[in-house]
């Protein structure tokens, strides 16, 4: 199945302009990622229109703030997950631990009087260390990442529960004030998310490392034949994804006055859902981060829409679950058709 995907296995190979990783034209001549982007934008617009018809006050600054706020941390985490999935690491089920561990490290550093400029790198490095631990087990044990991160996910949560019950950020710290602030009318933390997605997208398209990651994910044996060290790339992908998750943890600590170790669990599904909805296939080697930001936005709009429809918040879970099922169904159907 994977052999039919045209993958730029050679990092030095010329890349088509525009940076789209896979310009696999379909019958209408549109690249797959563009079609994904269009369909997600369409469904997103439908959701917004439907909500606005029922409740005209939906189109307000308040909704915009709520949606962009939800998007911020999920978006950064989705980039972290996307790095793992695109590079062929299947899935990282321990992202909630990564998030909370980094947030805890940041908050602890601040509570011990360290300056913000030190606390933020501490949070990011903690995320890298966690990713490194997962990477070590995966690479040296040659074990399936889903099983490894399943184990480190609930093992890590248990360790955190043993060591702390809840963590508070100092309410007067610079980071906390940053988390409360706004820039250009949107929450401050929205902008780092946008920067991460843009930088990540550019890195995948234009840097040697990014292309190698795609190559390793799309066709490992071809990548190996080209002299790419698979184990080093796999380890690096976990460290890189960990750093991004660490940044998400720093942002999370900035906007959450107090959190428990289990607070990360709610991000698990929206992140995996966003990645799959964005057409980043679990078989690896393809994906577009621009589509990812759209799918994060769409999924982040659902809870707000649900609230405006006057439904119980639990309906958001029902819709997100159903959407994920439909999205993977479409993804599977598409793979099946191209394989034929």
């Amino acid at each position: 199945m994977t052999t039919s995907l045209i993958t730029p296995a050679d990092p030095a190979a010329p890349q088509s302009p525009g940076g789209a990783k896979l310009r696999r034209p379909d019958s209408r001549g549109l690249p797959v990622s563009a079609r994904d982007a269009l369909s997600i934008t369409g469904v997103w617009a439908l959701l917004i229109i439907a909500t606005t018809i029922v409740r005209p006050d939906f189109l307000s600054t308040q909704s915009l703030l709520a949606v962009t706020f939800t998007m911020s941390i999920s978006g950064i985490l989705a980039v972290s997950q996307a790095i793992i999935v695109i590079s062929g690491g299947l899935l990282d089920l321990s992202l909630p631990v990564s998030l909370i561990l980094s947030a805890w490290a940041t908050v602890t550093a601040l509570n011990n009087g360290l300056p913000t400029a030190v606390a933020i790198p501490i949070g990011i490095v903690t995320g890298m260390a966690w990713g490194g631990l997962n990477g070590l087990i995966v690479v040296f044990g040659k074990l399936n990442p889903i099983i490894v991160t399943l184990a480190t996910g609930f093992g890590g949560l248990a360790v955190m529960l043993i060591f702390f019950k809840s963590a508070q950020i100092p309410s007067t710290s610079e980071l906390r004030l940053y988390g409360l602030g706004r820039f250009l009318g949107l929450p401050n933390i929205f902008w780092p998310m946008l920067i991460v997605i843009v930088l990540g997208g550019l890195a995948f398209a234009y840097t040697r490392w990014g292309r190698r990651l795609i190559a390793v994910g799309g066709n490992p044996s071809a990548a190996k034949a080209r002299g790419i060290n698979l184990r080093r790339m796999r380890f690096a992908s976990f460290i890189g994804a960990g750093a991004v998750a660490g940044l998400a943890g720093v942002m999370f600590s900035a906007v959450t006055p107090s959190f428990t170790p289990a607070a990360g669990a709610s991000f698990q599904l929206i992140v995996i859902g966003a990645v799959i909805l964005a057409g980043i296939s679990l078989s690896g080697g393809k994906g577009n981060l621009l589509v990812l930001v759209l799918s994060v936005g769409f999924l982040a709009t659902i809870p707000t829409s649900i609230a405006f429809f006057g439904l119980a918040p639990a309906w958001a879970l029902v819709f997100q679950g159903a959407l994920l099922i439909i999205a993977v169904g479409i993804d599977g159907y598409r793979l099946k058709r191209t394989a034929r």
Partner: protein
Amino acid sequence: MTATAPTLFDDPVVPPLRRILNSFRGPVGSISATLVVTLLVGLIWVGPSFFSPSNIQIVGVSVAIPLIVGVMASFALLAGVVDLSIGSMVGFGAVVFNQLVATGMNAWLVALITVGVGVVVGLTNAFVIVRFGAEPLAVTLGMLTLLRGLSQVVVVSAPPSTLIEPLYNVTQGAIAGFPTLLLIGIGVTLIAAGIVSKTRIGRKVQAVGGDDRAAARAGISVSKVRVIALVASSVGAAVGGILYVGQLGSASNVLGTGLEFQIYAALMIGGYSITRGGVGNPIGGLLGLLVVAGITNILNVTFTDPNYLDLITAIILVAAVLVDRFRGGDAFE
């Protein structure tokens, strides 16, 4: 009852003692060793009271429902499709059963409806996975969320309590010192083990999980086997939900959260794999669950922080898949 790869032809004649010893060479052997170690630790740390009837009752009651759910879910694993939605299905099944019984409907009819819900959920999973060839892990993760959401939509505040006399007797009673529910669970496990290792159906399931293309060439309907396996998994979870209502007398909207992780960790410790089908045996699953339940019990009795359980389970899980790989299981890359 060997846990090694299925043979399509009759095995050469092996003396009985050798046969028994051989069956311990696979995952069942290492998990038996782990169980013995767990029991020894229990005996040393807790003392003889670890094996007292009341303690066995406690362990038996706690392990029985996950065992029944796990054995049914193991058919899906064996067929090469993992069903992550079982924990939420247990919860949703329990919620449906509890709410409908509370309205005064006949309990048997309600049980039938609950099983019907399980069939519908299983068919939905199977439709998307088999018809569209979607990733089972992702589909059932979606179903996990959807069902959890539905449970929370149905049960907003305190759920009604129900007491169904015969169901309570089954779930809390004991026959000759052994919990009835555990005996039922062991019975289900033995029947499942017999199906897997002795019947054509079991071999078909193993073949589909091991290599679906080869199975298809051999004339086995891969889709049919996987649909049946996924429905079995959901129905098992629905039945588990009904039993939980019998045991607890109610069903909250968080019942069964994370149960799938415990069950799959135990099954993987017992020799199953969630990434490839065709391996594993219900007996191994039973032993895996007993190890986890034994550790839980030791921690409970010694008043240790229950969070250590998840940590220990995680370590054993990684160790188990590592041992499986050294034994010739698939390596990742």
